[in-house]
């Protein structure tokens, strides 16, 4: 399958990418790993007149500690997140989620920024970014702005990002007592249902919980009823089971496709919520 013709250029810096986007008057699209965009272009569902390659911009790549936060450049590939020693020790849930994206070849090319910008309803990172309360750092013609994960994901394939803007990095406070559990679509490995959970525990009691689901609906979203059910409770099998059992109850639109019916997805949200919370509990006591 051959896409419609386009022009190709490489940006050398974030400022250069923004200038090129602006100069193209809406004809251009960024390409990073290309593992969402190229398949769409081959199907001619996307027909940009120009591609601006940002994959090799040095300032967009890498994982760094910044004070008590971790910053990941937008063009960092999934493999590097999955195998980073810093992420593995400080935020194992994120390494776990990255390691479950697609397959090795996809993880060698696909990037964090591309995943967030594309916002596939079955993508893994969005759930994790939500429960980490990450901030998304964006540069556009008007300069830099910072968006909270909680307000970034808007709707199906729709995020708070202008076509002339570039996601530069994602920042978050790492947390150990957190887990990600995913029901894989067997061929592509996308999440039929994926749940991320963070537990803030003190003296055996949940001070607060952050739980989010991906794959279930138009976009990743927090499960606030589960979070409320856990807050203030002693952390044990019963409290986890009780909170997980209501997961998804408040989600109005649940996806149905060839891989899973709405009924099946609804049934799986509590199952994978429980698994994510159990992983978080196991890590909190480790």
């Amino acid at each position, binding site marked *: *399958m*051959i*896409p*419609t*013709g*386009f*022009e*190709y250029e490489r940006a050398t810096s974030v400022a250069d990418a923004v200038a090129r986007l602006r100069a193209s008057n809406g004809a251009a699209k960024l*390409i990073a790993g*290309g*593992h969402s965009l*190229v*398949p769409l*272009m*081959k199907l001619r569902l996307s027909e940009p007149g120009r*591609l601006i*390659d940002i*994959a090799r911009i040095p300032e967009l790549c890498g994982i760094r500690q910044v004070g008590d936060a971790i910053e990941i450049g937008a063009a960092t590939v999934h*493999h590097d997140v999955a*195998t980073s020693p810093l992420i593995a020790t400080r935020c194992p849930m994120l390494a776990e989620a990255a390691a479950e994206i*697609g*397959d*090795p*070849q*996809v993880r*060698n*090319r696909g990037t964090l920024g591309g995943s967030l910008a594309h916002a596939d309803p079955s993508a893994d990172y969005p759930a994790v970014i939500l429960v980490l309360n990450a901030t998304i750092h964006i540069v556009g013609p008007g300069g830099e702005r910072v968006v909270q994960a909680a307000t970034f994901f808007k709707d199906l394939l729709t995020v708070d990002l202008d076509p002339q803007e570039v996601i530069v990095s994602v920042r978050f406070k790492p947390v150990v007592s957190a887990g990600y559990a995913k029901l894989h679509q067997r*061929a*592509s*490995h996308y999440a039929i249902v994926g749940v991320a959970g963070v537990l803030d525990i003190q003296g055996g009691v949940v001070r607060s919980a952050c739980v989010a689901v991906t794959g279930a609906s138009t976009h990743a979203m927090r499960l606030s009823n589960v979070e409320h059910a856990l807050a203030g409770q002693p952390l044990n099998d019963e409290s986890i089971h009780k909170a997980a059992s209501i997961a998804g109850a408040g989600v109005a639109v649940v996806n149905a496709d060839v891989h899973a019916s709405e009924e099946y997805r609804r049934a799986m949200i509590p199952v994978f919520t429980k698994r994510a919370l159990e992983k978080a509990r196991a890590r909190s006591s480790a």
Partner: protein
Amino acid sequence: MSQVAIIVNGKARKADVEPRMLLVHVLREQFNLTGTHLGCDTSQCGACTVLVDGRSAKSCTIFAVQADGSEVTTIEGLATDGQLHPLQKGFWDAHGLQCGYCTPGMIMSAVTLLRDTPDPTEAQIREGIAGNLCRCTGYQHIVDAIQLAAGRR
């Protein structure tokens, strides 16, 4: 047209390509390296897997212009001095193929796997080839072949 310069199996190569030309087509049709197969053309099967700058990638999901300045290794680049690469030998000895269509991609994925995990468990091998589909073998002999190759290196 754009000119791309790619080091393919250690040799500097140049080609004039339209930007929409996929890497797999340039390898097969311009460089005559037909060992890299096009299977699904939808990023799923891994038959088109090559190494780009040392790591496995699906060449049907990369435009050749994206690989400009990169090093690419195909199945043709594995044997040295007429000696099969340990993975090629492993697939031969353990009957890791039937029709052979998936084999080049399987082996290129396994190269990356063994680079990252020199002594993989069966589960790690299965994860390492999760991006490659085989319609013949049922995978067991492929897993055995990779295990055999790992043990011989």
